[in-house]
């Protein structure tokens, strides 16, 4: 790869990283490098300074705090797959990570890097949206916590200011029945359509909590809140589900590109939502 000339600095502490970032308006943070390296290679991105945050120890931690798991920004997809805490407390996240790209990318790519890239077709974000995840952002001036839903602004655009670093992701423990579906042409591709859903039912079959998000169907991953409220508090019939899905899908404005036209993405999203929400709500194969 032949990027434009740039300076590369490794930060050993967050404070050091903040000071490097303040040196240069044009600085970019590099985490696992799985998004920025291809952009440097194609000269789409050409920051004059790259600040590598890999050596910062606290960014690699996975820890429980009360009923929440805090995952450091530099935790790799592979570490998420292998973490016992994540497996027993948010199995849905582990399942999501298993389908990201390929082995090499899972070994190097990070949770924080993926979220900051904000690709509308990325794998983590629909899952993290239904899990009601929050992100912690730190800078020399202080620290703030934002819900992921607010953090994601648009395609490749997040609510981060120059000088800020996303340091961790906070996820409430959730062991509800879930469904994570990624449809891509090839195993290692970005999704053409994806969905993540959690369903809690009462013993009589009434849906007490349903959360659904889709990826690759808009300029950012979306929670389908109307669909959720239509199906909450009732014992939905198949017809209710299908009508709710069709209504939700009708309102989408999916990506339209060579990997899938908007119409086709709607077709697939509708089909996978019906099939997989159906399984969660009615059990078994209820297509």
């Amino acid at each position: 790869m032949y990027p434009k000339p740039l300076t590369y600095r490794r930060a050993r502490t967050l404070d050091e990283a903040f000071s490097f970032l303040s040196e240069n308006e044009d600085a970019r943070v590099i985490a696992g490098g799985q998004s920025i390296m291809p952009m440097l290679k194609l000269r789409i991105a050409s920051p004059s300074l790259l600040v590598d945050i890999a050596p910062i120890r606290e960014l690699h931690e996975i820890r429980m705090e009360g009923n929440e798991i805090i995952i450091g920004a530099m935790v790799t997809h592979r570490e998420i797959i292998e973490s016992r805490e994540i497996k027993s407390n948010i199995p849905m996240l582990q399942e999501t990570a298993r389908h990201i790209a390929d082995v090499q990318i899972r070994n190097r790519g990070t949770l924080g890097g993926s979220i900051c890239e904000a690709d509308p077709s990325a794998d983590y974000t629909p899952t993290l949206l239904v899990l009601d995840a929050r992100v912690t952002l730190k800078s020399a001036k202080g620290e703030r916590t934002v819900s992921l839903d607010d953090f994601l602004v648009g395609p490749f655009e997040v609510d981060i200011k120059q000088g800020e670093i996303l340091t961790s992701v906070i996820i409430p423990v959730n062991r509800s029945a879930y469904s994570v579906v990624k449809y891509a042409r090839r195993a290692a591709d970005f999704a053409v359509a994806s969905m993540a859903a959690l369903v809690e039912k009462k013993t009589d079959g009434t849906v007490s909590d349903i959360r659904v998000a889709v990826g690759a169907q808009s300029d950012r991953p979306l929670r389908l809140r109307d669909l959720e409220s239509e199906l909450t508090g009732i014992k939905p019939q198949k017809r209710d589900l299908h009508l709710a899905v069709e209504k939700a899908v009708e309102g989408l404005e999916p990506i339209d590109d060579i990997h899938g036209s908007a119409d086709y993405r709607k077709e697939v999203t509708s089909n996978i939502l019906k099939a997989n929400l159906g399984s969660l709500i009615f059990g078994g194969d209820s297509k």
Partner: protein
Amino acid sequence: MMKSGNAQVLEPADKTSTSSTRNVGKAVRRLEDLRIIRGKGGYTDDIELGNQHYAAILSSPYAHARIKRIDVSKARNLPGVVLVLTGQEAAKITRPMTSRAATVSPKSHYIMANEKVRYMGEPVAAVVATSRYIAQDAVDLIEVDYEPLPVIASIEDAMKKDAPRIYEELDSNEIVTDHFEFGNLKRAFQEADRIVKDRIRIHRYASTPLETFVVNAFYDQTRDELLAYATDQQPGRTVGSVSACLGIPSSNIRLIVPPVGGGFGYKLAVWQYVAIISLLSMKCGKPVKWVQTRMESLYAFHRPRGYMDAEFALRKDGKILGVKLTDWQSDGNWPYVSALYSLIKFANMSGVYEVPNLQFEYHCVATNDPPVVQDRGVGKPFMAFAFERMMDLSAKELGIDRARIREVNFVPPEKMPYTTASGEVYESGNYPLVFKKALEMSRYNYWINEIPKLRKEGRYVGIGIGCAIEPGTSNLGYYFLSKASEPDYNGAGQMSTVEIGQDGIIKVNMNGPEIGTGHVTTITQVVGDIFDVDAEKILVDSWFDSAHGHLTYAGTYSNAFNDVYLGAVMTAAKRLRDKALRISASYLHLPLESLSFRNGGIFSEEAEKEVLTLKQLAKISYGQLLSFPKGEEPGLKVVAGYINPTAKPFVRSDFNVQLTHANSTHIVVVEVSKDTWAPRIIDYVIVHDAGRVLNPGIVEGLAIGSTASGIGGALYEEFLFDQEENNLTLTFGDYMKPTAMEIPEIRLEMHESPAPNTVLGTKAVGEGGAITSLGAVASAVENALEPFNVRIRSLPITPENIWRMIKDTDEYRKLKGAN
């Protein structure tokens, strides 16, 4: 995930064997692999010459534009830059390219764009700098004013009466057209019970070798000699082409090809870049290295897109009486190879079937599509795809089973060797038997019964058949069929070198590039049998060096290794063996007929023991000159040539484009998802006949690998362009090359019909999967979609394309209603 089938895997040297067939026929593990796995394979990019400089190339962002002005001053002034050369400057000091098969040669077609650019990615200027990074920075500083011209994005656009011309000096965008007829078409169509017609399309896709184009060239101004290293599949021709383009005598050019990381035909196009980089070195006096980036490698040199109008005249039992074909091909803008695809395609068009009356017409058209190259199988994958689609359609229209219609039409084994209507000679084969085995292995009848039941359960499952020949060894010269002049070369042969070194090691160089297809292992097996020695006594040098003997068109392509390279290696080896025995007999004063190579040394029947080691033999042959028989030359090195004896000269009424014809049947079972409409391969069966098999492991690997490339073409890959002919697929994120995750397990069985016209009875094997698979996969998907009553006429069969085909059908509406 790929089964090793019935191939037995042995260690390189089987020490228990003493016979002279110790190696051939066994699945000897590839000798190359250990080196490659340990990272010792090496890339051409690893070679650094003293005072190495680096090149980067500016590519055109437009598909069709006039170059109004190029300002290179900023680039030239960048520290570290030693040369900036524009295409316009290059055109003044080079000769234009000439077409090979086309009847016209545009005079404005140079190695770099001159007055205008004709495809997105065409080289416009080149930079030489002290580092690759600086060279790239300098490329970004070159300012070009383009005046966009109307883009010709299709054959239809190109053939419009007032269409702008890709080559303004030519009368038309149609570069070459021709018409051939064999037999009596009129009668065949009159006698037919049924005439079936359709238009079948082929899209743009390509092989994408791991190692891209690499050229490292040094023009030594003190000796006026050019030394070039390149990832080149046909270096013999490159020497001639570079010599003609740059005006360097070919004797002053030395071209070296280290082992190449994948050829696939793509590397037949590197010569243009050898010329560019050599020219840069001539101009700046430094050694210049250029490594093509992946994006550059995706710009150009693909298979051409186009379509074929086919008409089949059939008897009601399915027998083909006659076939009419009209082919339209967008050759992009590299008329250099125009018509090569068409002629190969048509010479073998009838495939495994008897077609007594055949007519074809072809049109090769220049457009703003990027250039094409002879990609894996050249026109043969489309030839088989179109023919097999027509076989399925004919079966449907006549109401007969798809397997049955093929059985009715196979060339019967008793007619072998069989000459087709146009003169192609099929040397051997048993097509019905290969087919029968495949039907059994795939449980064809089981699936035919099961599929309707699965449909009732709401599952769209289908089975498909593909049958095709795999022609190998180009009988060169065929590309002059549409021209009136003599071919610049014809026939098929190669030259190779075998020697016994001073240390007694047998050294072989096939004098052709090694492109990763197991030649080192296969040659070691064959030569091991000739000298009856273990693998560790043999050193196969896999570097091509033009300083060794080679023919005009030397190279590894057209699946000719098994035929002419093995022929040349064996000729040299046998000549060397005889010479060594004469020297031994004279030195030992033993009768010549009592001596033989046995078990790693020279054995005497009289003495009943080994009388010379190879080391002793070498010592005598290189030093003890007075013990030689009279007239014997010293040394133990032989350069020999070999010509396939069945190559015949070309006449338009009777021509044989290829000299061996392997064949295969592929049977595929797929299921189409009704959530995503993605087809998934459930079972894939190949029965393959590549003549005698020298190494079952290698043959199986090639058959499966080439099938993977066909599955890519059938289901995944396509270069996509917008209306302005901008290539939208310039990364592997966008160009859908399938990975190991997408390729199913493939079950393979081999049948062996030895070729009577090759030295060991072998036939071609590297392209078969790429040829046969397209039709088989399409047949299966179409069968799975039978309830929707749709026809597959084009590829790739992407999930979205399936959905577009079916979404307005009654079956789809029914399905949606049921939800």
